[in-house]
């Protein structure tokens, strides 16, 4: 029986921004394990966009797992459907090969939840059929998946922030004096430094 796992995350971006950013997720500082990404097929059918992509990722296993899973990289198939009318993006990924050793299936549904909010509901099924070791492998898979969730979220959110920067100060205001402009510039520089600090501390987690 596969182990099931789910969680929900909120992005403070419109669904259109999340859907556009989805294709630009890699590379990001949290995704160093992603080696390649290719579009295998793509078509528009009944107003929805169907895409199948192939990704390769490094295979991170503990020492004891190497006897079952020695491959240096794994291939992952990602199917997705974008419904621009209903504003729903569904992605479904599974590993290609080694599915008896460990099969990881992940489904994520990104739905619009207000003008600047998108909710991502993630479901995962982790299974193993290695006699005598399946329970240990499943437990390892679930643990690895949980850790990856935070990384995936931070990585994607960082990409969205760089694509669609949030205004930190009121725009459209013309500085009245030279001194005011200087003060603004200093404030903007300080904001940028603060943002950089926040980002680097997020990246460290």
């Amino acid at each position: 029986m596969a182990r099931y796992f789910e969680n929900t995350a909120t992005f403070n971006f419109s669904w259109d921004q999340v859907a556009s950013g989805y294709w630009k997720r890699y590379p990001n500082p949290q995704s160093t394990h992603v080696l390649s990404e290719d579009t295998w097929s793509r078509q528009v059918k009944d107003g929805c966009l169907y895409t199948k992509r192939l990704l390769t990722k490094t295979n991170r296993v503990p020492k004891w797992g190497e006897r079952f899973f020695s491959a240096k990289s794994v291939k992952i198939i990602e199917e997705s459907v974008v419904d621009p009318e209903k504003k729903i993006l569904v992605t479904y990924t599974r590993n290609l090969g080694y599915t008896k050793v460990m099969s990881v299936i992940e489904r994520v549904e990104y739905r619009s939840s207000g003008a600047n909010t998108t909710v991502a509901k993630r479901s995962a099924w982790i299974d193993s059929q290695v006699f005598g070791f399946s329970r240990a492998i499943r437990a390892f898979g679930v643990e690895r998946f949980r850790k990856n969730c935070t990384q995936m979220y931070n990585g994607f959110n960082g990409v969205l922030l760089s694509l669609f920067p949030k205004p930190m100060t009121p725009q459209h205001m013309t500085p009245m004096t030279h001194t005011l402009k200087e003060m603004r510039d200093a404030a903007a520089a300080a904001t940028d430094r603060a943002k950089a600090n926040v980002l680097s501390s997020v990246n460290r987690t």
Partner: protein
Amino acid sequence: MNSIGEECTDLKKKYDDCFNSWFTERFLKGDHDDSMCAGIFKIYQECVKNAMKQQNIDFKEIDKDVLGTEHESKAPPSGSS
């Protein structure tokens, strides 16, 4: 991001650029005509398929559709996770 075939990475980037502007500027705005990037996609695809063949990747397994079919995994009834 790199392509699985090193020699395809430049084509992939060209295709991705085309796709990304089509997706945001046309598809999300209701224009479903996808001919804009068809030319570059075809060239890029040939390159990737050759690279995959060299790496003995199972095409059949990739072609199999799961999302939206009966093979898709379903969430267990709530309370059992």
